[in-house]
């Protein structure tokens, strides 16, 4: 069919205008990298920077200072505060002398400041039942005879942790290693989902108590609404030693907590505002760029357009030709931009577990880049009509 052939050819031939093509691919690559960078930064609001954006993080004063029951009751009280959106508890229990097991709710993994996914050094974070993440360079120790811990085996991604007692067995697969910030010398730290945590405790650790390690409190408010000050107001409302959040943590009936650590509302607000501003500049710049680009394309190719019109190409058919080139450039430019980021990270030896290049960032920035080209495409698909074939009869 003619149309399909036109689409195919418009893409194929777009690559042939080398200098023009490369120039614009590079420009689009820069734009894409810029947009991706910002999409990544904004993505961090709900991930790596979640606590810095809208959270209070409260740690227990030390080993065993907050019991599970105390944690559950402060959880209930804080959850009921009107400014609070959600509360997450991070709990642990000891399995024997050498293993400390931490339970994480995968929905709140980013609120676990000492063991959030960006601290993974190898493999991935826990997603589902049966997954386990172990602290970096972990070793399993065992006592032999009278010498405590004198046998050790190192643990790596891919290893299976097999628990067995006379009535039941339990298996966890090590899916990643994490450079966690929890200070517990001589303990192998294992991070698993809360559900596994409960079963493992019930079957193998029932004799040892569950304690609370820390609690994250997130306030209400939309991270992606630059002109909405809910987060700011809610943070301010709680950020006061006379407020219930502080009073509850100071009440020893709820255990022995350290002072809350929290995002500074003013700084965060300013930071968000300026990032959004840069982002908007980027978008406006991008739109102008694609408009300019499409304008130039019609100008560069005007004799070609005139020839096609003289030949009897319909407007829609010429449009396909122009769109083919524009879309190819913006899509290739996008991937070149991403590749540039990857190469940059690679040369800087940074790890890719960070949030800059996660799936959502990529999807969103791709959508934005393709979306930015729309005004330009519209412009070109209207402006080419003004190219009259009559110019062909005039000598160059």
């Amino acid at each position: 069919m003619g149309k399909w052939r036109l689409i195919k050819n418009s893409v194929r031939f777009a690559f042939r205008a080398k200098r023009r093509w490369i120039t614009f691919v590079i420009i689009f690559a820069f734009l894409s990298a810029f947009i991706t960078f910002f999409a990544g930064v904004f993505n961090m609001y709900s991930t790596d920077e979640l606590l810095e954006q809208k959270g209070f993080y409260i740690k227990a004063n030390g080993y065993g200072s907050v019991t599970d029951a105390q944690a559950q009751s402060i959880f209930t009280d804080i959850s009921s505060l009107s400014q609070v959106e959600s509360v997450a508890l991070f709990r642990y229990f000891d399995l024997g002398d050498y293993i400390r097991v931490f339970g994480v709710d995968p929905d709140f993994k980013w609120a676990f400041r000492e063991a959030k996914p960006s601290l993974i050094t190898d493999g991935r974070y826990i997603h589902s039942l049966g997954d386990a993440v172990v602290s970096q360079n972990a070793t399993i120790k065992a006592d032999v005879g009278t010498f405590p811990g004198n046998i050790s085996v190192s643990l790596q991604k891919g290893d299976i942790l097999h628990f067995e007692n006379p009535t039941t067995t339990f298996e966890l697969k090590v899916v990643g290693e994490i450079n966690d910030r929890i200070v517990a010398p001589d303990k192998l730290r294992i991070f698993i989902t809360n559900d596994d945590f409960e079963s493992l405790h019930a079957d193998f650790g029932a004799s040892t108590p569950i304690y609370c390690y820390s609690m994250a409190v997130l306030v209400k408010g939309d991270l992606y609404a630059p002109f909405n000050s809910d987060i700011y107001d809610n943070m301010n409302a709680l950020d006061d030693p006379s407020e219930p959040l502080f009073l509850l943590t100071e009440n020893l009936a709820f255990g022995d907590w350290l002072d809350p650590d929290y995002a500074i509302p003013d700084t965060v607000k300013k930071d968000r505002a300026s990032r959004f501003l840069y982002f908007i500049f980027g978008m406006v710049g991008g739109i102008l760029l694609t408009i300019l680009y499409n304008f130039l394309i019609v100008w560069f190719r005007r004799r070609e357009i005139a020839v096609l019109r003289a030949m009897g190409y319909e407007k829609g058919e010429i449009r396909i030709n122009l769109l083919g080139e524009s879309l190819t450039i913006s899509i290739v430019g996008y991937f070149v931009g991403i590749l540039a980021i990857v190469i940059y990270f690679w040369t800087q030896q940074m790890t890719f577990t960070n949030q800059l290049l996660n799936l959502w960032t990529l999807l969103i920035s791709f959508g934005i880049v393709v979306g930015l080209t729309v005004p330009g495409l519209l412009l070109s698909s209207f402006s080419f009509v003004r190219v009259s074939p009559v110019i062909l009869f005039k000598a160059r």
Partner: protein
Amino acid sequence: MGDQIIKTEKVTKIYKRGRSEIVRALDKVSLEINAGEILMIIGPSGSGKTTILNCLSGLDTVTEGKILFNTSRAGEGFKIIENKKNKEESSRKKSSNFIDITTWNEKQLTAYRRHNIGFVFQAWELIPTLKAVENVESSLYTSRIPSSEIREKSIKLLRKVGLIDKEYAYPDQLSGGEQQRVAICRALSKEPRIVFADEPTGNLDSDSGNQIMRQMKIISREGAAVVIATHNMELRKFADRIIKIHDGQISF
């Protein structure tokens, strides 16, 4: 004559230049174009040659007069798209095969050019990013003919004008004469009824110019009318018929 493809009746084209100045680029031009002939329109610079070609091919509108196209000689696949204006007209003149293209809108004119008209320009106007054979094919990309068939046909045409082993060269790797031959093949690949050529040899030395004209001759022998506009009197020897034009008025 049944061989007429186009005939014009008192076509006048007036350009406005600035506020008040009027240029009568064509003044009551009546002519006909017959199948299988080389019709040469000769006149000095500014006499209106290009303007005639523009009007006959529907690239430009006329101010007054009629351009009648013989639908019984239309190219394959050509269908008259009717609009209100020419519906009345065609019912009025049921007996005749001639339809006035000056009543057509842009869509109709596009279809008209697509199936009936080929162009050869002074500056060749090959698409620089397409290889020679692709340039020839480009006028068929919008058709329903399978790609392999188009390729075969285009290569055959290129061979016919003596471009052997240059099918896959880009325009800037070809000489002017070679480029013009590619352009001729491009004009011919869709088997047009008329080829309009505006100074086709204008950018060439006389040897390659003559070669181009011989190619034109061959084309016309296969049934297409070739209309050549030029100021070069030396080309007269290649014409079957000559129309002289001066200040927008023609004489035979």
